[in-house]
């Protein structure tokens, strides 16, 4: 396990030393502050509006960070040939993959904390209250969702070129996030073979929308029941495990030379 943590630590160090995160954070902060300065609604609406914009930007920025960080790990190792001295050490390809995933997931977790702290400050400044339980649930569920996305991007990086992987994973995630929950209704309407196919897709895809509790924060609703949070956590961990198992199988067989 120490080897997995060693690889993960290098991934985190790389993210800290790259500029992507800082650029996205500054952009998110700048856009949120700009939107917050516009005053064409009443005070309550402005607070909700700023929170909505800020959360949307956080979701988009962290999605980009997760996909780009995870998606480039293995291709960059191969392209820069750093994979060769690494695999000449007593470490298996599965451990390298697990370390890469863990590093990406933890690094994304760090960025999430920074983004949500900024959101908390903005929210506190506007509404003078901070529903801490809602915020903790939002960060936790968001992090789980990004774990699935990072695992998907790692798997995709073994099947596609980095550019294709980036585009397809981002499109797939946004597609699932926005229309995934309606696929069963579409299937029921379509009927026949196409209906069954859509049902198959509906049951196979990870339903990322269940991790999105932005509305509860924006409108100050009650927190999600803890049982549901635990179920969602299990659901995310199962998907991460399945995606990583598929990636490990592929990576073990993939020629390096």
């Amino acid at each position, binding site marked *: 396990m*120490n*080897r997995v*943590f*060693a690889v993960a*630590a*290098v991934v985190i*160090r*790389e993210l800290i*030393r*790259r500029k992507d995160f800082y650029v996205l954070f500054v952009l998110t902060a700048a856009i949120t502050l700009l939107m917050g300065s516009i005053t064409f609604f009443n005070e309550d609406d402005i607070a909700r509006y700023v929170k909505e914009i800020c959360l949307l930007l956080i979701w988009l920025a962290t999605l980009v960070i997760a996909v780009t960080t995870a998606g480039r790990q293995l291709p960059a190792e191969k392209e*820069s*040939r*750093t994979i*060769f*001295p*690494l*695999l*000449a*050490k*007593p*470490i*298996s390809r599965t*451990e390298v993959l697990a370390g890469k995933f863990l590093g990406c997931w933890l690094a994304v977790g760090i960025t999430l904390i920074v983004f949500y702290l900024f959101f908390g400050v903005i929210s506190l400044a506007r509404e003078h209250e901070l529903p801490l339980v809602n915020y903790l649930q939002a960060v936790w569920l968001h992090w789980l969702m990004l774990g699935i996305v990072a695992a998907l991007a790692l798997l995709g990086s073994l099947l596609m070129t980095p550019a294709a992987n980036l585009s397809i994973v981002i499109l797939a995630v946004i597609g699932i996030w926005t229309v995934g929950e309606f696929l069963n209704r579409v299937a029921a309407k379509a009927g026949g073979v196409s209906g069954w196919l859509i049902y198959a897709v509906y049951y196979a895809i990870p339903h990322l929308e269940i991790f999105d509790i932005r509305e509860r924060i924006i409108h100050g609703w009650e927190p999600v029941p803890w049982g549901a949070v635990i179920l969602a956590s299990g659901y995310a961990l199962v998907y991460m495990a399945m995606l990583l198992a598929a990636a490990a199988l592929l990576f073990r067989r993939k*020629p*390096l*030379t």
Partner: protein
Amino acid sequence: MDTTLRVNHLRVEYPAPSEPGGVKLAVNDLSFEVRRGEVFGFLGPNGAGKTTTMNVLLGYVNATGGSAELFGVDVRQPIARQRIGYLPELTYYYRFLTAEELLRFYARIFGLNHHTASRRIDELLKLVELDGVRRRPIRTYSKGMQQRVGLAQALINDPDLLLLDEPTSGLDPIGRMKVREIIQRLQQQGKTVFFSSHELGEVETVCNRVAILHQGCVQEQGHVSDLVAKYQCDLEQVFLKVVGYPSPPRHE
């Protein structure tokens, strides 16, 4: 004498649609052994199968047939690489890390504890004369400095077997001398060195035994002195004769 490295009837094929039968035979029925404490030269012209054999030993490529073992452990097991150090021909390291961070990362992979790792890092950075720049990112190093980081990482676990792939390629004469000194010092410590090189003068200086590969097979192997005596010429001429290259005419 114990066997450190054993290659037994190794066969490696690559898919090659342009070749007859759709496969290219890179290594064919290759067998040799390297004993503990030897400096073993692995020679051959380009395309002879040296790199492929090295790739099998390092677990990058699976053999189609035969077997390869390090310290009696199948090379497909990661644990077979616990007691080896590997220096690639070119330097491929994480450029955003400093030399110290890189060595600490590899030390963790080998399972060294923090105290041992710190001691080894200090010793090695002094040995390769990078102690003064240990906290500078590797991307700021010159090519020679990067090669020296490579040597330090190959020694981080105090290996019993060192695999060197063209270790002096791209180094200036001082760098070459340093590498040669390190190889000789390791030999004095009873370490085994497996050395792939085109620098036959250097091989003749530092190696006890050599194997000469051609077209994926070992054509000749033995002690350097025995081969030189057998062919009545220096190692370079031995090499040319073994690979079937016509010797230049002698000017009496």
